[in-house]
């Protein structure tokens, strides 16, 4: 049995390790982990065979793991192939260090370098040691779920899209199987069950031995297993359904594991670029990210890392990059030509960039648009459409590289007279998700009303964001998570930083039919010496790029620049209405006098960094943020509260309706029965009904006030018991007796007429007062507001339903054994 548990523990670990698959490029790690689990299980078995204490058990597992790793990864340096020598251990340590570095360098999925494979094997092996110790040795199987969960949480944390259902299901099933076999063993220790609930089994005579042919029954726990299965199914159902039912808990957030995880191993994914943007912007130490020299006499352009071309309704991301080796950039190979750039004047710029060593995980190169040639060591690739330069395994940290780029200088006239967009650009870059609310569509057309050309629309938009839209640059605004945050930014709060501005403008441009995308990277930074620039982490920036045929992708700058905005942001000349003399219609867009001054003022001032540090300090505007969060519309809350009140009122209302209905049928209203004859007839028609009604009413009252009501009590027994529980005065006691006697006569006597309905109704009222008088205040209020008697009916209905369900499940549970019996008979 110990062997069985050991095997189950190993299987559970392996099944849990399946969840790691999105982390690696190839599948070889699994076999490394498999070997580690085998070794650990062997060590555990040996330890238990030797009956060493539990702590030594742990040691045995660790030693087995070490031996295994040593054998696989350092056998050439070990004594006698497998005994670890100092040399081999040192080698293992080096391997581990390499693996650690590699793991930090690459984004998942990482290539399966020996170091990484060893780390994976060691990690899986450690989990196996813990699971083995907890589940098999210490018999704390439930606790063994923690190491398994830790293993599962690695891919869940690293991969933004989480782990697929399959991997999760495999891990969970492995753990469940481990739990089950442990429970089975424990239950089996109590011997076999004699009877099940549904079907008494034959009890073998004492001392009866199974014949030679008959199989010996293992400890039979099927009845318990059946209830275990029921509980498990119930728990899973609750876990799946409850978050969906609780407002505020997004089931997508809880179960968003699926996605397209695990597809092509060469798909490039990084942690959300926009998340890192916010992080960089709010860093306390405004550290230097990179420095560069630019040959551009007109001052450098923006350095772009990413081009986010896809708006999924919530945020901007880039489409998965299908990377292949032909995309590699080499020193002498020219990059693809920038799309759409044909008319605008172009000059070539050479930029020499040095990225600081401290910068980690910069897998996309900051390059000025549009790069035409990149010289850098390592495996760097280019995305032909967006000209993003990225690496699958290298980071730009500490590297220097040279970029030759083509800087377009379109004039406003060229942009205004741009021709029609190519079809592929339109289809790819103007897609707007369906869930973008209508207000934004309306807003976009309102803001740009009267503009004919795409350029004038874009200029209007930028103008609206920077000048007359009433927006405030606020770095403390929360990073937008959902489409609704964007709506809130545009329509209500109007507070945000470059991310919101860029995202909103790109979205509105798409709504207007202008192809757009969001670019992310750095502003030019500060020029420390002529031609030498330094970029700090707070120069991180996002901006929209709009497509104009003939000029290609053109940068716009909706984010306020200068002291009250992104310090080093520069609005390009063509986007300024003041200097744009393009179409005649644009002149009517009256340029405000101060529209250019902040931008100009801050553009090339070396001290800009100092300026914006003050403004964007993390202590910035906490109150504003609070106000924003507190300003959530109260309507849903009010509606919710109203709903809760209504729901709470339901039992009370039901009770009142029930009471009224009971009597209404019996006591004729004076208006409806004018003559005394009719009245007596109505009464005489159903005296038993009146007694029953009084009785039921009193029963409901008793239940409401928390008195026990036994179904096995006859009327007189119930009245006697109530009389003992209550401290009744003489009138109350008489009323109680009368009601009970009326009910008794109505039920059991032949032709005896009980009390008239009016009398009984008065009696019921008297007794109810006695009930109320003899319970506490809480019970009294509960009787009024949440009368339990209304629940009795519901509960009874539920109980029969539950019984039926139990019946069905019991039958289902018996199915396997019945089938087994049938087979055995054959």
């Amino acid at each position, binding site marked *: 049995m110990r062997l069985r548990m050991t095997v189950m523990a190993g299987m559970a670990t392996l099944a849990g390790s399946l969840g790691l698959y999105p982390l690696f490029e190839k599948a070889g790690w699994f076999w490394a982990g498999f070997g580690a689990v085998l070794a650990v299980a062997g060590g555990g078995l040996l330890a238990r065979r030797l009956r060493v204490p539990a702590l030594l058990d742990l040691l045995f597992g660790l030693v087995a793991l070490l031996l295994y790793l040593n054998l696989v990864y350092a056998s050439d340096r070990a004594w006698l192939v497998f005994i670890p020598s100092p040399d081999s251990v040192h080698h293992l340590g080096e391997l581990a260090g390499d693996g650690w570095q590699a793991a930090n360098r690459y984004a998942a999925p990482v290539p399966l370098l020996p170091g990484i494979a060893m780390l994976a094997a060691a990690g899986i092996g450690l989990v196996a040691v813990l699971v083995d110790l907890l589940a098999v040795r210490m018999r704390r199987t439930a606790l063994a779920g923690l190491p398994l969960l830790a293993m599962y949480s690695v891919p869940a944390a690293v991969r933004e899209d989480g782990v697929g259902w399959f991997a999760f299901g495999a891990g969970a099933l492995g753990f469940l199987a481990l739990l089950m076999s442990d429970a089975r063993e424990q239950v089996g220790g109590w011997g076999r069950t004699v009877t099940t609930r549904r079907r008494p089994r034959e009890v073998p005579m004492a001392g009866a031995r199974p014949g030679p042919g008959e199989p010996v029954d293992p400890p039979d726990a099927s009845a318990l297993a059946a209830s275990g299965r029921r509980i498990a199914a119930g728990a899973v159902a609750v876990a799946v359904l409850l978050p969906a039912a609780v407002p505020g808990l997004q089931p997508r957030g809880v179960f968003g594991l699926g996605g397209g995880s695990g597809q092509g191993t060469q798909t490039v994914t990084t942690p959300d670029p926009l998340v890192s943007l916010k992080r960089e912007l709010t860093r306390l130490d405004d550290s230097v990210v990179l420095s560069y020299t630019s040959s551009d006499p007109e001052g450098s352009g923006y350095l772009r890392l990413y081009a986010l071309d896809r708006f999924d309704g919530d945020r901007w991301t880039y489409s998965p990059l299908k990377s292949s080796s032909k995309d590699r950039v080499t020193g002498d190979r020219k990059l693809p030509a920038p799309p759409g750039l044909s008319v605008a004047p172009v000059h070539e710029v050479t930029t020499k960039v040095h990225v600081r060593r401290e910068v980690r995980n910069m897998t996309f190169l900051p390059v000025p648009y549009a790069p035409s040639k990149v010289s850098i060591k390592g495996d760097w690739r280019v995305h032909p459409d967006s000209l993003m330069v990225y690496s699958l395994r290298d980071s730009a940290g500490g590297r220097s590289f040279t970029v030759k780029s083509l800087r377009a200088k379109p004039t406003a006239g060229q942009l205004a007279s741009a021709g029609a967009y190519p079809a592929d650009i339109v289809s790819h870059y103007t897609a707007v998700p369906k869930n973008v609310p209508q207000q934004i569509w309306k807003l976009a057309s309102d803001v740009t009303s009267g503009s004919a050309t795409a350029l004038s629309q874009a200029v209007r938009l930028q103008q609206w964001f920077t000048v007359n839209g009433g927006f405030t640059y606020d770095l403390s605004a929360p990073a937008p998570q959902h489409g609704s945050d964007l709506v809130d930014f545009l329509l209500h709060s109007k507070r945000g930083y470059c991310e919101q501005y860029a995202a909103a403008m790109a979205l509105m441009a798409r709504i207007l039919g202008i192809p757009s995308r969001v670019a992310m990277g750095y502003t030019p930074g500060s020029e420390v010496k002529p031609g030498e620039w330094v970029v700090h982490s707070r120069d991180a920036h996002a901006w929209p790029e709009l497509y104009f045929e003939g000029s290609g992708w053109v940068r716009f700058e909706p984010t306020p620049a200068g002291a009250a905005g992104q310090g080093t942001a520069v609005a390009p000349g063509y986007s300024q209405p003041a200097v744009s003399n393009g179409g005649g219609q644009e002149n009517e867009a009256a340029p405000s006098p101060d529209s250019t001054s902040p931008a100009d003022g801050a553009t090339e001032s070396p001290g800009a960094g100092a300026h914006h540090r003050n403004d964007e300090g993390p202590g910035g505007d906490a109150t504003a943020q609070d106000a924003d969060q507190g300003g959530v519309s109260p309507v849903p809350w009010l509606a919710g509260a109203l709903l809760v009140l209504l729901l709470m009122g339901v039992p009370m209302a039901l009770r009142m309706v029930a009471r009224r209905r009971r009597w209404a049928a019996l006591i004729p209203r004076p208006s409806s029965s004018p003559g005394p004859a009719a009245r007596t007839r109505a009464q005489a028609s159903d005296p*038993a009904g009146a007694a*029953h009604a009084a009785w039921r009413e009193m029963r409901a009252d008793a239940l409401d006030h928390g008195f026990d009501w*036994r*179904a*096995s*009590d*006859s*009327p*007189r*027994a119930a009245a006697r018991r109530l009389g003992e529980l209550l401290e009744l005065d003489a009138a109350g006691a008489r009323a109680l007796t009368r009601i009970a006697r009326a009910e*008794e*006569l*109505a*039920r*059991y*006597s*032949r032709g*005896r007429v009980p009390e008239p309905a009016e009398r009984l109704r008065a009696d019921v009222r008297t007794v109810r007062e006695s009930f109320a008088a003899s319970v506490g205040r809480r019970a009294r209020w509960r009787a009024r507001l949440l009368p339990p008697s209304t629940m009795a009916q519901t509960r009874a209905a539920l109980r029969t339903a539950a019984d039926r369900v139990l019946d069905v499940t019991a039958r289902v549970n018996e199915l396997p054994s019945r089938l087994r019996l049938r087979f055995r008979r054959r």
Partner: protein
Amino acid sequence: MAVGTHGESFMETDPPASHSARRGGGGHDGAERDAAGHGLDGLAQVANKIRDAVESVIEGKPAVVRLALTVLLAEGHLLIEDVPGVGKTMLAKALARSIDCSVRRVQFTPDLLPSDITGVSAYNQELREFEFKPGPVFANIVVGDEINRASPKTQSALLECMEERQVTVDGTTYVLEPPFMVISTQNPVEMEGTYPLPEAQRDRFTARISMGYPDPAAEMEMLDTHGEASPLDRLTPVAHAADVRGLIDVVRRQHVSQAVRQYAIDLVSATRRHPELRLGASPRATLHLVRAARAYAALDDRDYVVPDDVQDLAVPVLAHRLLPTAEAQVERRRPEQVVADLVKRLPVPSPGR
């Protein structure tokens, strides 16, 4: 023919005037009709008199006396089971003596024969024919003392009479005159020298009651009264056999509503399904239960039966017919407890919603 050789003579009062073969049960006289005419009031009057008389002998046991009276009015037979010396025989004799009717007492012993109960045909030399000598069973009230000391053969002779209210000897059937009631006493079956009654025979007794020890006050009073003379000697009949027949007639006309009948059936069938019982109660038990409930209600001066009657009677009427399973026996669960639990759990049928 010496029937009464063992112990006391089984004839304690005068034998009834005559027992003729095939005498029908139709001979109702005026007094009987009178009592029937009075209905419940008359019944209560007579019943109270009998009760008072018995209670003057059996002190501090009103419930037991009431049960005994119930069985009498329900045309049933009573089994009194208890340890020796608590007044079983006294109760039987007191009940018998407070009614002016024929009473016979049979002391059951291991060598008692069936013919000692039913009677024999003896050859009359003068008339040169066989003549039937009725046994002690030909009486209105038969007190069978220590019935479980006789052999099963003899027990069954009595039990046949109990169920069919007739005796068949040598092919001739003799109908017993109503009221006919057997009051048997028995010692607990665990005691030495006893043949436990088979289930089939226990089933014929309407109710089994146990006397229980008297409380100290009642015992003290008993010492006082028994000091001088047996109180039984002072007891004089307070009712005629005809009165009792009238009462029985009233009881038969008691109304038992559908709900109560349903309740009785529910209760009895619950014993058949109960996991702790190997043998449940028979349909005869249902009959006895409802019949006893009628009498019980009548004694309570009611002309209809309520479930409370059934509940009160469930243990004495049902418990002695049930056999617990081996597991229940190991757990020392007595059928009495099982029935009491059932009564506590079984819902009383209530009309509609």
